């Protein structure tokens, strides 16, 4: 009689073999209905982007909820819930004409009251990014059920970069008014206006959405069901993508090394374009409250000592390009290359440190400080190690500290208990939404995560930033944005190390995957299965 172990081994081998045989080469139809299987990670806290803003939520939410507009390839607004819009001559009023044939998934008609509630009661009150971005909106008028007018105190061009569903989220007023939007139970079983209707959420397993039969955009969605699987293990995700069990994975689903390998797979596409509106940037901050970092020569020396090209290659495996400033180079309307640069030059670095009075001591060390690694994964820890090694060569001894996220945030933004830190953040589509946070003295807010961590204060920079926020003339505003980059690179409170290329991986045979800059947050309503390619 076989021992239990033998029995298990045999049956598992057998099970393995039979599984292989029945493994569908990308299950696209189940009982005749076409099913698109996607992946989100980690498991979202809620499914409404307006109340639980985070990447895993946003990618699901856009399928359930439409926004006022969406964006095209050039980041210009395209109608969604709003059919058309006009701006008043003084730019203090934006009138949106809304569609009249849109219903919430429970049958209630969508009206301008929903827009008013969402912007005034939620976005402006509790959304961490919308609040400052919509600072100039003082009221949303609703002259009729299908017209919403944004009334602004001052013209605010930045609003136009922040109106899609993940940014200016539209809640169903009839289900949210009078409740606390953060804890409303409909965050877990949403009622939206989007192409897909929420069906079920099997926690730890999957989120299931089905086609909205009454969707205003006829012909969409082009699949019957959309399932978001939650797969905590990276190698399981990789296997799932390779054998077609998951066809769309928008949130950097595998490690960088693995992604390079999967690029060779003829059935998969590894795409970075869909992340451009999020614009992730990797940087290193100095704690300017410390006297030794207040000498700009010290900061410049350290910039000269880090080889950003090698960082992009060795640590990020090419999924990054060296940054030349705080604004990413692919944001053509805002970027300028004409800024002070600090090319890799260890000799110059050492000279600068000598000039600043930091000479090598008996053990060859000029300067000692600690460095808080960003906490989101191996890549950033490796980046920290890379920086440590590069600085060792010029006599700077760096001690790495690996806190977990909550401690890290506390230490940096509340207690200011750090010497240097590195992090990535989203620069977003307009520098006013993301970039200025790092350089504005008014954004040094204790306790607010991702505010101005270095403590940089410069009257000159503040003036430029305030110009960016209030300037109406687009050319003068762009000039100010260029000026911001010049000052940021000259004063160097923070070394901009890399423009990161987050990526999505999806099956090549999917048609019409959104590759606009908001691709990763866009709805999958236009996606369908093309002809299966030869495997």
């Amino acid at each position: 009689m076989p021992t239990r172990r033998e029995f298990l081994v045999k049956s598992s081998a057998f099970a393995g073999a039979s599984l292989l045989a029945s493994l569908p080469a990308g299950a696209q139809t189940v009982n005749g209905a076409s099913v698109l299987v996607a992946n989100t990670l980690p498991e979202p806290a809620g499914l409404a982007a307006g109340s639980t803003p985070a990447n895993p939520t946003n990618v699901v939410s856009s399928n359930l909820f439409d926004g006022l507009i969406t964006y095209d390839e050039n980041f210009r607004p395209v109608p969604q819930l709003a059919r058309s819009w006009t701006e008043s001559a003084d730019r203090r009023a934006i009138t949106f004409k809304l569609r009249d044939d849109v219903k919430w998934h429970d049958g209630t008609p969508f009206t301008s009251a929903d827009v008013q509630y969402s912007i005034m009661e939620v976005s402006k009150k509790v959304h961490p990014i919308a609040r400052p971005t919509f600072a100039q909106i003082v009221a949303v008028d609703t002259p009729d059920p299908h017209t919403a007018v944004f009334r602004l105190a001052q013209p605010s061009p930045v609003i136009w970069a922040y109106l899609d569903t993940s940014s200016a989220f539209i809640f169903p007023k009839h289900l949210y008014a009078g409740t606390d939007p953060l804890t409303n139970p409909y965050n877990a079983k949403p009622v939206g206006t989007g192409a897909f209707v929420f069906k079920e959420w099997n926690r730890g397993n999957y989120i299931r959405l089905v086609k909205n039969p009454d969707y205003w955009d006829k012909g969409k969605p082009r699949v019957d069901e959309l399932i978001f699987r939650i797969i905590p293990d990276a190698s399981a995700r990789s296997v799932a993508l390779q054998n077609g069990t998951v066809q769309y994975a928008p949130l950097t689903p595998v490690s960088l090394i693995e992604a390079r390998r999967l690029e060779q797979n003829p059935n998969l596409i590894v795409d970075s374009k869909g992340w451009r509106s999020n614009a992730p940037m990797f940087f290193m901050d100095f704690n300017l409250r410390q006297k030794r970092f207040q000498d700009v020569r010290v900061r410049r020396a350290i910039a000269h000592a880090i080889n950003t090209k090698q960082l992009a290659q060795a640590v990020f495996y090419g999924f990054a390009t060296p940054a030349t400033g705080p604004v990413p180079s692919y944001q053509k309307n805002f970027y300028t290359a004409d800024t002070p640069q600090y090319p890799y030059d260890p000799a110059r670095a050492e000279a600068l440190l000598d000039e600043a009075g930091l000479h090598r001591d008996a053990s060859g060390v000029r300067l000692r400080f600690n460095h808080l690694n960003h906490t989101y994964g191996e890549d950033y820890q490796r980046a920290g190690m890379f920086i440590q090694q590069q600085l060792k060569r010029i006599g700077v001894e760096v001690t790495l500290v690996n806190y977990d996220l909550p401690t890290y945030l506390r230490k940096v933004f509340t207690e200011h208990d750090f010497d240097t830190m590195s992090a990535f953040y989203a620069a977003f589509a307009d520098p006013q939404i993301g970039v200025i946070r790092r350089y504005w003295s008014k954004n040094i807010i204790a306790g607010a995560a991702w505010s101005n961590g270095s403590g940089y204060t410069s009257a000159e920079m503040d003036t430029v930033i305030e110009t960016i926020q209030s300037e109406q003339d687009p050319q003068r505003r762009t000039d100010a944005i260029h000026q911001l980059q010049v000052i940021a690179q000259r004063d160097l409170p923070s070394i901009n190390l890399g423009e990161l290329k987050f990526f999505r991986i999806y099956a090549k045979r999917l048609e019409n995957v959104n590759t606009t800059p908001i691709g990763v947050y866009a709805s999958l309503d236009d996606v369908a299965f093309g002809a299966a390619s030869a495997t």
Partner: protein
Amino acid sequence: MSRPVQFPPSRSLRPLLAVLRVAGKAPSLAAGTLMLLAIVAIALGARHLTAYDPMDMVGSPFIWPGTDAGFPLGTDMMGRDILSGIAWGARVSLEIGVAAGLLAAAAGALIGAVAGFYGGFVDEVLMRVTEFFQTMPALLFTIVMVVVVRPSVATIVLSVALTNWPQVARLVRAEALRVSRAEYVQAARVIGMSRPRIVVTHVLPNVMTPAIVMISILAGNAILTEAVLSFLGLGDPNVITWGSMIGSGREALQTAWYMTAIPGCAVLVTVLALNLLGNGLNDLANPRRRGAQRGVL
């Protein structure tokens, strides 16, 4: 048929044969000691055996072991020399193991001795404390401690010691109970020696054996725990340890599995050596009759 003539072994071989004979009687002890000595030698000689700083990115990444003479064990995904990592990692692992083992043994021995000797209320209280520490799942406890304080070698040593002393305490307490009834201890009480003094001068020295024997097992546990913590990303980022090598190799498991295999083998061999040593010492301390019983069946 005549008996073959036996030549006595030459003089130079006699000491070797003597050692082998002893080793044959206690194979675990011998094997364990030898292996451990080899590992200690590697750890101490790391500076001379290897040319590179284990944390420095000195070569091209992903070199397979045996393909490049400059990097006999290959390089990892950042171009760091794996041989250097193993040699220098041996140092850290042994340090952690020994420190945690000693700490746990010392704490456990003290508490066990006091509990066993004093008895009564003190014993009850100490035993409840021991139970408390034993009830908490050790790894979770360690993880929470490391997260709460901060990942570093010191925190790991401390938390490993905290989760491992109960086993020592139990063993020592049993011994202490026995010793406390011995005549010389009773005599010391009669002549009025203070209780703490009795514990230190009479009880502890006689109950140390189980604690000492356990040190090497505890060291092995500590090394395993450090490996898990580093693997989970909770290790000290400023040193290369075998656990951190296993952890960082995980991303490349599909293709470059040697990055995980090699440091894992190092851990295995070291913990094996420590366990063999511990078992050997245990056999020495508690000799058991062997072979005789089998005959019954």
